[in-house]
């Protein structure tokens, strides 16, 4: 190898270093995405390879059967929860970058849920939410708030409880990202504002907010796409029972439980297009800013 000219070496390196990674990416990212598109126009069951072309029938079915497209309303719980989470995380990020004793310890502690195992978290909350023996209801009783007790995982209430788990897990992550953004705002700006006699709200409105705008936008898009892709929490907790299906858990069931892979593929394509549309929107916003 040492005697080869750099030109030959270059070719060897390029082929040697890129062939396998590119093949992997084509096989596991691009081929699935393209075949998904093809399946979405067929009546394929997912078993065997028999399939017939059905045109846009699957897509029509998605938009005409409310029990399919309608599950997006359950994703809305996660979205609203995500907005709440962003707001709370921003508040704590501001508090923990202000002058405060113990702020580093508080930051580390509030981040803990993000590193915990996600399935174990859901199971943990299943026990916390238990009607009779769950620690939440026991706690509410102990502090005299009996009237707040609930069947937290019952139909009609479960989606709130599930969305809360998502907030609980991810709020520390959002907070740490905001802290990173806040720390990148030059301290001089705040000094100047102080000298000019700006109020706390004015400082926030005219220095903090513009300084973190791009991160804030990114967090909102991530909240949105994260809510659209919510799956683990409702699936592990309820298997979609009691009206807790999200669009992804419905898609997975449609494909692997009800053997309607064609329809499931069309659902996946719909979701893919929505997610990509939002991501492009975000990039556009970012681009406009850089201009």
């Amino acid at each position: 190898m040492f005697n080869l000219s750099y030109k030959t070496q270059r070719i060897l390196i390029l082929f040697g270093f890129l062939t396998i990674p590119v093949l992997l990416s084509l096989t596991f990212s691009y081929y699935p995405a393209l075949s998904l598109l093809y399946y979405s126009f067929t009546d394929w069951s997912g078993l065997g390879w028999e399939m017939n072309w059905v045109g846009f029938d699957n897509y029509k079915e998605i938009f005409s059967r409310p029990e399919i497209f309608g599950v997006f309303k359950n994703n809305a719980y996660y979205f609203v929860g995500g907005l709440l989470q962003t707001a709370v995380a921003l508040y704590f990020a501001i508090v923990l970058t202000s002058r405060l004793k113990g702020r580093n310890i508080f930051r580390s502690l509030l981040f803990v849920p993000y590193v915990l195992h996600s399935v174990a978290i859901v199971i943990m909350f299943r026990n916390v939410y238990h009607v009779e023996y769950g620690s939440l209801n026991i706690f509410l009783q102990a502090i005299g708030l009996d009237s707040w007790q609930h069947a937290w995982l019952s139909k009609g209430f479960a989606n709130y409880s599930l969305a809360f788990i998502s907030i609980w897990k991810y709020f520390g992550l959002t907070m740490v990202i905001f802290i990173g953004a806040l720390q990148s705002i030059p301290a001089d700006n705040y000094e100047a504002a102080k000298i000019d006699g700006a109020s706390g709200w004015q400082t926030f409105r005219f220095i903090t907010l513009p300084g973190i705008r791009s991160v804030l936008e990114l967090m909102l898009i991530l909240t949105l796409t994260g809510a659209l892709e919510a799956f683990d929490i409702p699936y592990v907790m309820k298997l979609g029972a009691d009206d807790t299906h999200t669009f992804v858990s419905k898609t997975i069931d449609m494909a692997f439980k009800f053997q309607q892979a064609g329809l499931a593929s069309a659902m996946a394509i719909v979701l893919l297009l929505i997610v990509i549309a939002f991501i492009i929107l975000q990039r556009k916003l970012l681009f406009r800013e850089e201009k």
Partner: protein
Amino acid sequence: MERQNKAWTIFRYVTIAIGLFIVFFPIYSVLISAFKTKVEYYNSGLALPHDWFNFDNFRKVFKVGRLGLGFKNIFIILVVSLAGNVLIGTMVAYALGRFDFKMKKPIMGMYLVAQVIPMITTQVATFQVIKFLGAYNEIYAPMLLYLGADVLQIVIYLQFVNNIPKDLDESAMVEGASLFKIYRSIIFPLLAPATATLIIMKTISIYNDFYTPYLYMPARKLQVVSTAIYSFVGPNAAEINVISAGILIIFIPTLVIYLFLQRFIFAGVTNGAVK
């Protein structure tokens, strides 16, 4: 002004206390339940356990829930996937970051677009690929997916490789080093900070992953931690004390990583967001 500041400080501490309470209340209930007997669990509410040295629940969940097997399987998957990710990531970053060639733009574009495709949406089709390759219900199904479908490592390494001065390559070439040697003794070691962050972030995400092992490895002997605890809970739903012990054990590995390598984790999440 002075009084206002004091009120603001109190308000901040009160909200932090509420936040900490909400974060640690569920963890506290798991912690105390894990050391209680079944009868004790159903009678003692939020009280501390009688005996902090009652490890029966831990023994039981390890045995019946086969957590040991779960840890072993996820460990194998982690080692192979991480090694592969580091290797592929650094190689691609070196090839794309240091050379100009016709296919460079298309390959770069390919990775950027792949980053946008949400993996969970394409599982219906990915499943067929895995089946076709004969990897269904084999331990290399998740390995292949963690290697091929996730491109985070390439994006991270590409950023880092551009920060390594090209002079280093050139002076090595003057001394007659081969390109492979430049990759191995200059680029690879200098990418170490990125590698550290990447390994930690990927360890957490692979360890946490539920749907890949759930969909692709339903065989009992291939259970990983996620699927082991998931299938333990169904038939043993009444034994919340034992389940709690399982949850606690599963929490520990990433908590330990977090305890010692917090700096890298914070760097990882902030970099990921700002990119």
